[in-house]
């Protein structure tokens, strides 16, 4: 079969039989996952469950051992412009010499080629993305001077500037203040209400029901997935967070 032909095009993120192993130890095992378009989806699971690895494998940053991933029916390489990625804030050096606007503009660099530079329109787009996370006043501020919450907003603006259909965020609420968390959630809900799909690796079980309408519970394997109301059950939580997980057969 031609790998570029459409496969499950009506699903925003389709993951099938995905297994990722580091040095032969499985980090993700046989993941089958479908996130429909237009939902705000949380990916939860204990430490070491493979949440970030799932995102990285989907985005081609980690080489899977087996399985495939499709975005709106397309391989990621063909769907890049429709996917906006917000990595964990701690993965970069915030002492880098750049302003908030510089960083946001980087979201548009994927469209450039060798020896090309962004035009004036890119600057304007970046400014309006900063404005939509209420950071317009900080456009010229060095990123080293921003608070953790402000840095997170800059990272989200960098994805917004691409105007994608699917947002993938890795722990955007980690280490930000309550005001920023509320602003981020409001922004993501607004995106969802515009028909965008939002997938968030989330660490705070307390707020899952309040923030999200779709839920994936992960612990190396997929423990449960679906609407939050159906998936967020004590039984599933116990299976995801309690005890070890067997790779073959039922959960222990």
């Amino acid at each position, binding site marked *: 079969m031609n790998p570029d032909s459409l496969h499950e095009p009506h699903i925003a993120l389709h993951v099938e039989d995905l297994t990722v192993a580091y040095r032969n130890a499985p980090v993700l095992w046989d993941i089958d996952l479908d996130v429909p378009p237009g939902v705000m989806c949380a990916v939860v699971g204990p430490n070491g469950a493979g949440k970030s690895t799932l995102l990285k494998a989907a985005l081609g940053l980690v080489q899977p051992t087996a399985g495939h991933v499709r975005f709106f029916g397309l391989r990621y390489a063909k769907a890049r412009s429709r996917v906006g990625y917000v*990595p964990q804030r701690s993965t970069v050096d915030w002492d880098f010499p750049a302003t908030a606007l510089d960083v946001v503009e980087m979201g548009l660099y994927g469209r450039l080629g060798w020896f090309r530079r962004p035009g004036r329109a890119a600057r304007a787009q970046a400014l309006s993305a900063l404005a939509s996370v209420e950071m317009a006043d900080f456009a010229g501020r060095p990123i080293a001077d921003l608070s953790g919450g402000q840095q997170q907003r800059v990272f989200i603006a960098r994805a917004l500037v691409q105007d994608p259909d699917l947002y993938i965020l890795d722990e955007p609420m980690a280490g930000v203040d309550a005001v920023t968390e509320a602003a981020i959630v409001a922004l993501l809900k607004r995106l969802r209400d515009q028909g965008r799909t939002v997938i968030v690796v989330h660490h705070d079980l307390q707020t899952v029901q309040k923030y999200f309408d779709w839920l994936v519970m992960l612990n190396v394997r997929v423990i449960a997935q679906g609407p939050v109301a159906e998936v967020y059950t004590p039984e599933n939580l116990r299976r995801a967070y309690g005890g070890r997980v067997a790779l073959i057969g039922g959960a222990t």
Partner: protein
Amino acid sequence: MVAGFDHTLGVVAAGAAVLGATGGVLGSFAVLRRQSLLGDVLAHAALPGLCIGFLVGGRALPALMAGALVAGGLAALSVLAIGRFTRLKPDAALGIVLSVFFAGGVVLLSHVQASGGAGAAGLSAFLFGQAAAMLVGDVQAMALVGVVAVGLVAACWPWVKLVCFDPPYARALGVPVAAVEALLTLLMAMAIVVGLQMVGVVLMTAMLIAPAVAARAWVTRLMPMAALAAVFGIVAGVGGAVISAGARGLATGPVVVLIATALAALSLALAPGRGVVWRALRDRRLAARLEGDRVIGTLRALGAAHGDPGYRAEAGMIDAAHGTATARTLDRLAAAGMVREVSHAPESTRHWVLTDKGQAEPGPGRGGPG
């Protein structure tokens, strides 16, 4: 004779300027990508390349440069391979590759020198550089390499910036990160090659690190940082050339490195916002102002308690309210016209009142002390 001397100085200064500018720009990326040590590896690895270049192409600088570039590339690949196929940590990989290549270079060097041949003796000058031996043709070759290296960075600027800041994100965007990183490593090797004759393989890494570190202290964006690093590099290069030309027996290369390092040290100490001394002075100023605000607040509260804004507060009382000596703070406030010293007979101790200016002063003490 004088004209000949000036000509030599001109050549050396031009070479030093080329080296400083190239090292400054490419060094900025090395420092930001935390690859400063890779620069040291590439520089030391140039030695065997120089020897092989000499064996193949003779004393001509282009042949030596080509040898150094190839050896640097092999060293960089070795570091990558060790990182990929073993569990060694990066610092260990860098250390091993540096020593192996440098040891191989020293062995080759002694072999070449023992087997004689015209100019073989001059090869050891590449250990610490020998600026005086520089010819106009050498400077032209250096300038060509430098212009190509800086020009390539400028041409790929947005991707270079993104890959330095956030490589995984760049990959997610579809930027060919591995190619950009390979390009940056190649350009760093080119910058090193530019400096081999001037400062030599052992000290070259300082010309990558020091100007970049100095520049980072003063500016907050990448383009100004690279430009300022080039300026610092040129200042160090030309300054070193002039100083060593004016005094007998001072090796140019090491003097250039010392000036570059001094610029970095001064910048780390004095630069506004980031300098250690600058920050210490600012903290002291802020502490003094805070203390002043609190004393004014105390005086104001005492005035309110006595229903008299001009209440004459005894110095000991103010000390007691703060739990610490406040005489210096009061003197400072008096100098600023916020308080005035008054007497309060029959007591002979110092007393203080708020002046009109002190009454009007807004501050955290408005609501009283504490």
